[in-house]
């Protein structure tokens, strides 16, 4: 049973560029959430996708956008990258309703130079 997968593992971008991160949820899960984790901090909720719609959003600017596909996989897009966007980006999946346990992927380490 495949768990949550994310790609790429690591990414280095320059300020002002755009980046797309990808996530495939655990088999049987239809809800995907994205979190940003800065070094030494706990994960911060970016948004959640369910039925291809953004259902809830955290305190992140519009530069952060996402998409969910019919197969439940998801993308996180970040435009006009800032140095402060350097972080570990975590994808989590869950079953309908997004309640209770969320299963996390290994993350994508983004470095903005």
């Amino acid at each position, binding site marked *: 049973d495949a768990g*949550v997968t994310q790609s790429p593992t690591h990414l280095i971008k320059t300020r002002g560029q755009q980046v797309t991160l990808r996530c495939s949820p655990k088999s049987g899960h239809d809800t995907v959430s994205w979190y940003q984790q800065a*070094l030494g901090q*706990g994960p911060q909720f970016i948004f959640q996708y369910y039925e291809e719609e953004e259902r*809830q959003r*955290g305190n992140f600017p519009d530069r952060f956008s996402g998409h969910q596909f019919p197969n439940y996989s998801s993308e996180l897009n970040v435009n006009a990258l800032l140095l402060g966007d350097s972080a*570990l980006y*975590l994808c989590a999946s869950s079953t309908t309703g997004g309640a209770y346990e*969320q299963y996390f992927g290994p993350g994508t380490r983004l470095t903005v130079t």
Partner: protein
Amino acid sequence: SQQGEEDPQALSIQEGENATMNCSYKTSINNLQWYRQNSGRGLVHLILIRSNEREKHSGRLRVTLDTSKKSSSLLITASRAADTASYFCATGPGGSNYKLTFGKGTLLTVNP
């Protein structure tokens, strides 16, 4: 903003000893969860305790919840070197709130 705050920020113990980590939160909750993270990788769900529960066990883990004090504790008994990791408490989700709100975590080091 972070809902949960773990205490201590770092804990170093010897193998075989017990480790206790505490978490405090600010608002009412539906449930509280504990996660483990090894070396900046993905988080692993450890245990969930609902707001109407006071104590829960899973293997070597024991979690307590005191909603009157808005606090929870995670006890790891007979610790092993492999338990070395960061431990996070997270509140939610529930109702129309679908997100997990994490604290800053406790870094546990178990020395062999």
